[in-house]
C-alpha cells in the first residue's frame, strides 16, 4: 500500500469544523453532511474539511486526542511499557500530518503536538524493530 492510499483511507474519518458560510444539508453518497451555519460546529469527513480549510471557508477544531497533555501522557505510557499501547486513533499519523500541514493556526501549540506525535511514532517503531525477532 503506498502512502497516498493510506492517506486516502485515513481521510474518511470525521472531524469537527466551524464554517464561516451557510449552506443547506448536502446529500453525499456516503452520508449526509450539514447544514452549515456560520459559527456553529458541524462534523464532516476529513477530506472535505481539508478542502474547505484550504479555500478558507472554515476553521478546523482539533480532535480531542490532539492535545499536548494527552499526548505527553501517551508518550510516557509507551516509554514505560515494553509492549504496544492501544493508540488514540487508528490513523493518528495521517490525521496529524494533514491537520498540522493545513490548519496549523487552528491547533494550539502545534509544534509541541508535532514533536510529541513524532516521538510516539519513533518509540513504537523502535519497539517493532527490537521485537521483530520474537515475532518471527
Amino acid at each position: 500500500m503506498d502512502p497516498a492510499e493510506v492517506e486516502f483511507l485515513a481521510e474518511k474519518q470525521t472531524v469537527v469544523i466551524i464554517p464561516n458560510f451557510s449552506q443547506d444539508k448536502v446529500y453525499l453518497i456516503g452520508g449526509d453532511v450539514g447544514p452549515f451555519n456560520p459559527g456553529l460546529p458541524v462534523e464532516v469527513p476529513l477530506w472535505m474539511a481539508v478542502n474547505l480549510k484550504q479555500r478558507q471557508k472554515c476553521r478546523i477544531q482539533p480532535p480531542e486526542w490532539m492535545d499536548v497533555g494527552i499526548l505527553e501522557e501517551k508518550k510516557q505510557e509507551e516509554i514505560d511499557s515494553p509492549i504496544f499501547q492501544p493508540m488514540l486513533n487508528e490513523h493518528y499519523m495521517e490525521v496529524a500530518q494533514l491537520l498540522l500541514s493545513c490548519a496549523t493556526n487552528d491547533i494550539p501549540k502545534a509544534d509541541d503536538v508535532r514533536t510529541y506525535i513524532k516521538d510516539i511514532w519513533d518509540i513504537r517503531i523502535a519497539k517493532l524493530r527490537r521485537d521483530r525477532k520474537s515475532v518471527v
Partner: protein
Amino acid sequence: MADENEHEEYDSDEEVEMTAADVLLKLEEAWLNEKFAPELLESKSDLVECMLEQIQQMEENLTRCKKGDFRIIIHRMELDRIKYIITSYLRIRLSKIEKFVHHNLEKELNREDSESSKLSNEEFVYAKQYADNLESHLKSVAIKHMPPNLQNFDKDKTAPRPNLESYIFLKVTEDQEGVMVEEETDEHENEIINLEKGAQHIMRYKPISKLVENGSVSLI
C-alpha cells in the same frame, strides 16, 4: 435498461435493502480484501453496478443545477473518490486474472453449479480471449522455432498458481471459534485458535480464506 430492472429485483428479493452508504462501505471492504488476497476473490459486480448507477445519477443532477457552485465542488470530490475505489478494484482483479489466467479458467470450468463464480461474465470473456491471445502469441514468437518434441507442453503443470501460503494481515469483524490453523511441525500438530472481534493478526492466507469469503474477517 433490462439490467437495471434485474438489479432492482435482485436487491429486493434476495437482499435486505441497503442504503448507498452501506454499498459504499461494502465496496471499500471488497477493495481492500481483493488488494491483499493472493488469489482472485468472488466478484462483487452487484456492488460495482449499484455504485456506478449512483455516480451516474449524481452526475446528471450536477449537470442540471448550475448555481450553487459550492456544492458541486464537494460532490465532484466525492465522485472522484468513489471512482478511484472502483477503478482500483477492477484493475486489481484484472491483473490477477491476467497473472493466473490458466488457473482461473480451469477453476471456472470445473466448478460445481452450487458454487458461485469468481469471474463476472465480462471477466470470463476477457479471460478466455486473453488466454487464447497469449497462447497464439507464444506459439508464433517462440514455440514454433523450437525443436518439435518440445513444442507441446502441459498447460496444467506449467501455469502459474497463486501462492495461498503467503502471509496476510487481518482484522476480525465477527467472533470465530475453533479456527484450525495447521502448524508445520514434524508432528503435524493442528493448532486451533479462537478469533475475537476487533483483534488483528498475521497468518497464512489458506486457513482463513473461507472466512474472508463470508465476511467474518477483513484483510488490512
